[in-house]
């Protein structure tokens, strides 16, 4: 009995080569993974809001930490938060709203600029460091010395020696701040330089620029974003603390840290004066951190579906 089902069938070779995995685009997956988390969306909105407000509000408020225009008007002192003064007023009638946003602006500028500089220098040096074995010997020795001195000590020392000010602070933060980043990048470069997929690319004659942009950079993206997400909150915290101690920024530059230090004595009598700057500081730092962390996780291809 010749059953039709038992006859030979022409097999479609291409069908067996079919890869059932869906089409994959790296950046699309990065953003898709990022936006999956409701928390990071919320934090992104918060961070954007804070940044925009901090950049714009001081332009309109004309806040100057050295002047107290309402100092003679006693009725404007120690007003609790109300509709006119959203964050209330302090002991000389200054609006905490203006002061807080001006201080936030300083924090953002300082952390972005110094982190940006540190990253650029660190990545450039680190990439070179990772490739050159000769440079590695010397730089490693230097690194072992520098890395073992607490960063706070170095920054404080630089400020002490070269004076206070906005750009002085940035210089103090970047004079050795790039080193740990360079070291980290150097280690990463050494790891991936010797990874097989790079050896293979080289054997296949891939030109170096293409290797860097297709093999190395995507891997480094995740690593760099993780770094950024840690660096920025760290610098925000550091600047706040230095200003709190009266080191680093002059009183001409508004700062959340200094506000906190000024209003510590009112923590019981007028708690809003103290806690509002503290909350602003925390919100700034937390929102940036969470956005950065989530983006760093999202840019790691292993987390893509």
């Amino acid at each position, binding site marked *: 009995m010749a059953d039709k089902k038992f006859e030979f069938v022409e097999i479609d070779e291409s069908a067996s080569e079919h890869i059932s995995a869906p089409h994959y685009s790296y950046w699309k997956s990065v953003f898709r993974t990022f936006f999956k988390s409701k928390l990071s969306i919320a934090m992104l909105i918060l961070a954007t809001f804070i940044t925009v407000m901090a950049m714009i509000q001081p332009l309109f408020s004309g806040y100057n930490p050295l002047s107290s225009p309402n100092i003679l008007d006693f009725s404007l002192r120690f007003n609790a938060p109300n509709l006119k003064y959203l964050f209330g007023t302090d002991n000389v009638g200054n609006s905490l709203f203006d002061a807080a946003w001006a201080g936030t602006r300083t924090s953002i500028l300082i952390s972005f600029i110094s982190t940006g500089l540190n990253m650029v220098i660190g990545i450039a040096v680190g990439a070179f460091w990772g490739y050159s074995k000769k440079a590695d010997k010397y730089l490693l020795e230097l690194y072992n010395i520098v890395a*073992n001195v607490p960063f706070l000590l170095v920054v404080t020392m630089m400020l002490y020696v070269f004076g206070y000010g906005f750009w002085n602070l940035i210089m103090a933060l970047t004079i050795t701040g790039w080193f740990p980043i360079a070291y980290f990048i150097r280690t990463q470069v050494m790891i991936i330089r010797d990874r097989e997929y790079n050896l293979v690319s080289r054997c296949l004659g891939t030109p170096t620029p293409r290797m860097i942009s297709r093999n190395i950079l995507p891997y480094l993206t995740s690593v760099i974003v993780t770094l950024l997400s840690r660096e920025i909150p760290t610098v925000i915290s550091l600047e706040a603390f230095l200003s709190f101690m009266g080191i680093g920024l002059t009183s001409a530059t508004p700062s959340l840290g200094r506000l906190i230090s000024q209003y510590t004595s009112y923590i019981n009598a007028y708690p809003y004066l103290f806690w509002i700057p503290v909350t602003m500081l925390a919100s700034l730092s937390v929102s940036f951190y969470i956005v950065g962390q989530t983006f760093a996780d999202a840019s790691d291809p292993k987390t893509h579906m």
Partner: protein
Amino acid sequence: MKKYVISRFLRSLFSIFMVTTIAYLLIFTFVPRERIFMNDQLWGKLTSRPDTQKAYEFSRYDELGYLEYEDQQSLCVRDYSTGTNDYFECMDINSSKFAQLKSQYESKGWVFGVYSSTNTAYASREITIIQRAIKFYANMLVIDGPNKIKDASNPDLERKIYVGKDWSGKPALLCSGCENKYLIYLNGSFPFIHQNWIKLNFGISYPTFSGIEVLTVMSDRQGEGVMRDITFPTGVTTSSSVNEYTCEYKYTLDRLDLTKFTDKYADCRTLRKDPSMMEISFTMGLIALFFSYLISIPLGIFMASKKNGLIDKIGMGYIVFVIAVPTLAYIYLFRFVGSTVFRLPDSFPKLGAGELSSWVLPIISLSLPSVAGLLMWVRRYMVDQTTAEYVRFARSKGLSQQEIFYKHILRNAIIPIAHGLPGSIIGAIGGAIITERIYAIPGMGKMLPDSINAYNNNVVIALTFIFTALSILSVLLGDILITYLDPRIHLDTKGGRN
């Protein structure tokens, strides 16, 4: 192995030397020297008398090693004895004798000036930064010896080191002719054996703690003097706060000294009731460190074993909180909660060092960041290890979870924990600076911003040296520890980490 330790130790010393020297050179070159007077009340009071103020400044600069300073009187006294005609001639600013003196000194680099109010001259010579630095290191190590004291009024001073008894009868190593009477002595406080023989000299503290040696400022007990009944060598018993072990040679004794002392070692410091800055910072730091390891390791292990459980989620939330929120903010928050909910003192001096409750909040605050870091690390490590090959094999051998954990995983975990110990110590130093400020704790961490604000350069240098030394030596310690724990590492063949 021994060779490695010695070479690493020398390299560590070199690193400490480099960092301290750079700091030293930077500070004494760039920090405007006039600022040191800003916090000196005495100086402030002299503003109405500019010449006296200038003389005061010069003598301070001399004392602090910036320059050499002599006024007309001291210059003339050098060459001519007081009372002689030559001396009086020298003291006349218009005389030829003085002009001769002046050109003599000017040729050696001295610069002269005149105090218009008294019409007397003064001279100063800058000490270059290199000379200064060399002097700094040359004087750093001070070793006491029986030939130290040169007292013209006491030519028969015995010069010997001998074993004797202290005032309470305990044995001690004493010295006649040294700066200090007690070279080695015993007492009840840690580390139980103390010495005055070899000391580090960082110069004089100024303007805060004016006139006292820097190291003494940091290592001497603080607070009120402790009055108690003491029997002096002469047999007299009175209530006194003297600390016998600090007694140094005194060139001129007064009447009160003669009633108490049988020798010339009568320059003694007070015994104070509160622990020294070093003691406070070290104690807090060590306890906080110990505490954070004690909590993080078991908790991290538990979190890893019940991954994504409730405790794990809470723990992860805590970690994110501590990392994301600036230290300043969460320590204040923690202090607020601690003082309102638990009624613990919100600043250290409120109840003082004697009260245990003063220590609680600061120590916990100090440990908060290191707990977060350790917790995250331990948890990740444990999660990684449970999928490691050797754990799979151990499981396939029939070992229980407990056995695998204790005999295999934990042994492996100790190595990176030891590796991370120096990092924790370095972090603790930074953390101490913040915590001590917030709780107003009189420790070494608070000294740093305080001395920076006061332009107390010698203290800043000393603190830089100490913090750097602690960091670098703890790295060395960590590496040595690892060699003992990990049989795979042979440090003799290649140099250390990385």
